[in-house]
């Protein structure tokens, strides 16, 4: 199976690799997946007082599509409001990266990571956790 140019680009030059201070109040961290399943994503967002995501970082253990999905997700998150970020759908990632059907779960995981990071931020700031979407698989 050949990878799309966009997957290769994100895989070779991943954007926003790194770690934010997970204990900071304005940082939300999402850690999703499991080593046994062959993919783990950690996605972090830094949010300002206006509920705008000012920074996003990721680290991913997984295949090329998983790495590309999380890299692209961090790119999209920066500058978005929390509400806009919540609207990111895994199928947008699939489309942008031209993921084949067998790799759709990588995009699902990235969406889960976004929502999980937002929830972590909400809970830290005294807001109720949103209900997580059911994993598509």
């Amino acid at each position: 199976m050949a990878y799309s140019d966009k997957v290769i680009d994100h895989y070779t030059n991943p954007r926003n690799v790194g770690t934010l201070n997970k204990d900071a109040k304005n940082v939300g961290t999402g850690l999703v997946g499991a080593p046994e399943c062959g993919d783990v994503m950690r996605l972090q967002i830094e949010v300002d007082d206006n509920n705008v995501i000012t920074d996003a970082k990721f680290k991913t253990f997984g295949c090329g599509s998983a790495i590309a999905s999380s890299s692209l997700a961090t790119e999209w998150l920066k500058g978005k409001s929390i509400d806009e970020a919540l609207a990111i759908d895994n199928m947008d990632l699939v489309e942008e990266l031209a993921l084949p059907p067998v790799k759709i779960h990588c995009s699902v995981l990235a969406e889960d990571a976004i929502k999980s990071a937002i929830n972590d931020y909400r809970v830290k700031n005294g807001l109720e956790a949103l209900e997580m979407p059911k994993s598509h698989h």
Partner: protein
Amino acid sequence: MELPIYLDNNATTPLDPRVLEAMMPYFTNKFGNAASRNHAFGWVAEEGVDYAREQVSKLIGCSEKEIIFTSGATEADNLAIKGVFEMYADKGNHIITATTEHKAVLDTCKHLEKLGAKVTYLNVKEDGLIDLQELEAAMTPETILVAIMYGNNEIGVIQPIKEISAIAHKHGALFMTDATQAVGKIPVDVNTDGIDLMAFSAHKMYGPKGVGALYVRRKGPRVKVTAQMDGGGHERGMRSGTLNVPGIVGLGKACELCRLEMEDEAKRLSALRDKLENALTELEESYVNGNREHRLPHVANISFKYVEGEGLMMAMKDMAVSSGSACTSASLEPSYVLKSLGLSDDLAHSSIRFGLGRFTTEEEVDYAIENTKKAVNHLRDLSPLWEMFKEGIDLSKIEWAEH
């Protein structure tokens, strides 16, 4: 050095040009049907087949009459196991095999279970070898066949074949082995090894795809298998179908070359493999899978902890290797062979198989070392698990959100 480099010789090997040369005439002017007994075209083809049969039998120390040509090792495995099950039905219905066998053996056994066979799947030890005492304990008066592979395709470990066949025979069972990865790579002698049936294939030893053979013992004991394909009664009635003459000629030539060059080749390849393995295990948290003493000379299976195999392969640019991980929605399951060794799923997901071959050069191995190291480091920089490991976090204590 030409890129990409090929280090997946356990999947298939390139055709040796000398094999191609031997095959060529049988595609063109020597096109006859080897079963045409009444004209020169048939005789010429038959001669080619007979010569190949001799070349094959010399490699494994048997008589020409004991070779049944097939379309490959999968067909040979099927014919051996199903054929014995049918032929010896009045003697018993119990088959013993191991969990690390190739799917051609495992799925054939599964199929036979539906038809009334009782199958014991022996577990392997941490090093990939079966436990002989467990084998002995599994033998029953109904055991008709013990089917254990010679060399494993993923980790390269070589089973104690002589001891296994002795146990099988002691209990009156036949011994069959899938020797696809071993024949042509290490000395295999059906008599010293006590083998009754043996499957192997041309394309793993620099021959063409689409041809293989089943060795069926004729003396002490005389083994018979029920044909699985009905037709013209070729191959002593055990495998009907017009013979693939060019393929068979290629298999013969490939066997001859292996017989003549195996010893030097094995030495050269095991030195290169050791170089590769030693360099790569210098990386932190990298482990060689399988027994390192009893194994094929050209395979290295290494787990690089905290990076995922498929992702890693993508970073190993211009290199063809294979991974124990399959990250597809259909199968998130990592290699069943590695899991049989007791490897945790995450280590199994982190494994890469390097398969060296006749045309692998030292320059290519050096390139592979550098490239792999770079790739592992790149992926670890991206890996949250590596970061946690470095921070001293016990990953087994984390409650992962399984998906």
